[in-house]
């Protein structure tokens, strides 16, 4: 299909000095300028929630092996701190960063500046308000008690209203796109923008506003909790990987056909996942079996993505040494494969009987939400922010510290909980071992987990310092002796009034 806006193969392969090139530079500069305030607002608030969530995570982790720590304050008890951590991370940090990345990617891929920025700014303000009220409500004792939906009923409508504004924006931008052919990342992004409100509203209606009874609650709960990861965070993470890896190394993805196969198999079959978490529970056996089958079918999109990423990177792994974005993206991409394939295994009845109700599940959730998605978010932010601010990252050392602290922290965290969880599950399945002994047996793994949380906190602090530093540079004219990699796309270099 030939269109005036999509480049010919020859144009894509070799740069030219025509007026069209100048137009393209101006367009990219316009897009970045239009995204600057809304995306930076989302990133800054996301980073703030990341830090709040990190503090809550350390508290919760510490309490796992020192239950008396800060136990005299009701609002700091484990039952409140742990869901407050989860919701601050999921709806505060991860969702806001995901929306920010989606905005920038959609504008770049649609070749249109961000339209109606005020909609996004308004949505971001209300989203933050909703998360703030929600997390404060959880700490105050108003949690719904429903996994991944603990935010009280008086705060969740605010989140839904904010999201509706973002959804409207998504449709508008998609409608006015100048690039008629859709790239695979656009498919993932548009699908995620469509799926999330469906999941969130259906789950809230059935669990919070007009709760269903009995075991149906568990079915809906796990359907939501699993799908929000697979149909909200995963598509956005994969969209970012499919854009940034080829873009950074300057090489198209190995097989566009495989990328399409991966997307459509995810879109058609992922929705049936979730109920496999109820293996052994009082649920219709066919419902659980269907979920197990759907989980095993997820091998198709996972393997297609893994093959595609690996063969795209083949011969270019050396560039990870020089590119922060590539480093985080490849780590995230590999973790996606690990998270998904172990998820397939854990869905099997024989494995689930051991691993469910153990710390192994928590480790698995962190492979998906942190080692995959959060690392992809970090990589994306390292690419996008210099283009929005027209400034280089101030410190390469802080980026390296961030990466290694996060990577090492995650390695320790996942290893400890995965191994410890299996031992815990085997012990729990043995009627000769008293339950208290099982609990005591997990303590060494829980202490390693707390150590890992401190490492992650060091990485987050390094990220925060670099982020505040680059924002502080906005008020100063840019003076850089060597040409920046972003210089050609940016026509100006004076101070920016944010």
């Amino acid at each position: 299909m030939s269109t005036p806006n999509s480049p010919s193969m020859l144009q894509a392969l070799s740069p030219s000095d025509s007026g069209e090139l100048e137009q393209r530079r101006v367009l990219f500069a316009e897009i970045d300028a239009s995204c600057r305030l809304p995306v930076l607002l989302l990133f800054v608030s996301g980073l703030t929630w990341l830090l709040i969530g990190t503090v809550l995570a350390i508290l919760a982790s510490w309490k796992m092996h020192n239950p008396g720590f800060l136990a005299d304050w009701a609002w700091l008890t484990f039952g409140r701190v742990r869901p407050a951590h989860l919701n601050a991370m999921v709806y505060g940090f991860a969702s806001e960063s995901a929306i920010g990345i989606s905005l920038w990617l959609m504008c770049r891929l649609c070749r249109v500046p961000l339209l109606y920025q005020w909609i996004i700014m308004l949505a971001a303000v209300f989203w933050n308000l909703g998360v703030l009220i929600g997390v404060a409500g959880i700490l105050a004792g108003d949690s719904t008690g429903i996994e991944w939906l603990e935010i009280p009923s008086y705060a969740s409508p605010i989140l839904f209203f904010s999201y509706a504004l973002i959804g409207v924006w998504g449709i508008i931008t998609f409608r006015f796109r100048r690039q008629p052919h859709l790239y695979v990342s656009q498919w993932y992004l548009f699908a995620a923008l469509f799926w999330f409100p469906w999941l969130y509203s259906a789950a809230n209606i059935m669990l919070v506003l007009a709760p269903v009874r009995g075991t149906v609650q568990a079915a809906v709960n796990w359907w939501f909790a699993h799908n929000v990861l697979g149909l909200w965070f995963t598509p956005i993470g994969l969209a970012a990987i499919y854009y940034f890896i080829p873009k950074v190394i300057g090489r198209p993805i190995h097989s566009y056909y495989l990328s399409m196969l991966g997307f459509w198999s995810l879109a058609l079959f992922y929705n049936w996942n979730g109920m496999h978490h109820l293996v052994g529970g009082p649920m219709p056996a066919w419902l659980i079996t269907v979920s197990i089958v759907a989980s095993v079918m997820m091998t198709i999109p996972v393997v297609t993505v893994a093959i595609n990423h690996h063969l795209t990177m083949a011969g270019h792994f050396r560039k990870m040494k020089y590119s922060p974005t590539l480093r985080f993206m490849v780590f995230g991409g590999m973790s996606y494969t690990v998270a998904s394939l172990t998820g397939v295994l854990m869905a099997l009845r024989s494995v689930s009987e051991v691993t469910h109700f153990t710390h192994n599940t928590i480790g698995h959730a962190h492979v998906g939400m942190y080692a995959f998605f959060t690392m992809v978010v970090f990589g994306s932010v390292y690419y996008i922010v210099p283009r929005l601010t027209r400034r280089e990252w101030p410190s390469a050392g802080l980026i390296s510290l961030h990466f290694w602290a996060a990577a090492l922290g995650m390695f320790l965290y996942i290893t400890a909980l995965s191994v410890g969880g299996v031992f815990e599950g085997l012990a729990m399945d043995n009627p000769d071992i008293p339950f208290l002994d099982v609990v005591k047996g997990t303590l060494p793994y829980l202490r390693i987990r707390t150590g890992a949380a401190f490492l992650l906190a060091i990485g987050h602090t390094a990220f925060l310092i670099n982020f505040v530093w680059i924002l502080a540079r906005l008020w100063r004219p840019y003076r850089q002796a060597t040409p920046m990699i972003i210089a050609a796309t940016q026509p100006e270099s004076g101070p920016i009034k944010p």
Partner: protein
Amino acid sequence: MIILWLIFIGSLVLLPGTALLALRWAVRRGEFHNLQKAALSIFDEEEPVGLVTDHFPGMEIPDANRRAPRDP
């Protein structure tokens, strides 16, 4: 209760159903006609194939194509 069950089961069926509709729309629009070209659509004259577009601040990538600095 029955209505809520219908919402739940309906979601399980309708979500893949909308994906099927989107797939039909994509096939009719010719989204799968030229896959090689689709893979190249993120590259253009400004950021062509072969150009490395990210590196640590102040670090050079050996043997990598870099964009020439702009005229002042």
